[in-house]
C-alpha cells in the first residue's frame, strides 16, 4: 500500500518538524513560562504524530497495539507534566517575564 506509506511518512515528518520547532522554542524564548509553552504544546503532538505514523508503518500486529498504549500514556502524562511544572513554578512565586519596556 503505497498510499498508507506516503501518509505515514507525512505524519512522521510533521512530528519531526514539530519536535525541531519545540527545540528552537525552548532555546530562543526568554523565560520559563514561554519555554514551557513552546515545548509543552509541541511535545505531545510530536510524539502523537510519530506514533500514528509508526502504527501505519507496522500495520495490524502486536507492535501497533503496544504503540497505541504508548500513545494513550503520552497523551495523558505529557500535558500533566507540563501542568505540574507550570503549577509548581507559579506556586513557587516565579513571575512571568513581561515586556521589557514595562519596568
Amino acid at each position, binding site marked *: 500500500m503505497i498510499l498508507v506509506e506516503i501518509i505515514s511518512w507525512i505524519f512522521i515528518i510533521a512530528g519531526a518538524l514539530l519536535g525541531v520547532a519545540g527545540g528552537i522554542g525552548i532555546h530562543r524564548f526568554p523565560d520559563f513560562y514561554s519555554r514551557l509553552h513552546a515545548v509543552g504544546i509541541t511535545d505531545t503532538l510530536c510524539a502523537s504524530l510519530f506514533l500514528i505514523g509508526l502504527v501505519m508503518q507496522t500495520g495490524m500486529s502486536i507492535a501497533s497495539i503496544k504503540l497505541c498504549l504508548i500513545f494513550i*500514556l503520552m497523551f*495523558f*502524562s505529557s500535558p*500533566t507534566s507540563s*501542568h*505540574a511544572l507550570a*503549577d509548581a513554578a507559579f*506556586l513557587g512565586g516565579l513571575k512571568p517575564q513581561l515586556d521589557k519596556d514595562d519596568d
Partner: protein
Amino acid sequence: MKHDLILRVIAKYLFPVIALFAFYVLFHGEYGPGGGFQAGVILSVAFIFYALVFGMETTEKVLPLKVLRVLASSGVLTYAGTGVATLLMGGNFLDYGLLLSSKAAGQQLGILIIELSVGITVSAVMLIIFYTFANRRRPWEDHHD
C-alpha cells in the same frame, strides 16, 4: 488545595499502568530487553511517583518500611535458596535445568524465579533508599523536638 487536582487524578490512573509495565518488563525478560533489575526500578518508580503526589504519610501507610525490609531480604533469600536447592538436587549452584523434569522448562522456571527475586529486592532497596532520603529531618528543624 485545588491546585494539584489534575496531578492527583492522573497519578491515580498512572500508578497501575507503571506497575503493570514493571511486571511486563519482568516477565518478558527472557524474550526481549528487560529483566529483574529494570523491572524493580520501574516498580519502585511507581511508588516514588505516588509518594511525590500523595505525600510520605500515605505511602508509608500503603507500604510500611518494615514490609520493605522483609521484601528486600526475602528476594535475596529466594535467589540464594534457588541456588542451594539446585546444589541439593545434585547440580552446580544455580543449575536451573534440574528444577523440572525437562531441562528447557527447568531453565525457564529458574530464570523467572531469579528475575522475580532480583526485581523484588531491587525495588524494595530503591524504596528504602527513597524513604531514608525523604524522611531525613532538615537540620534547621532539629530544635523543635
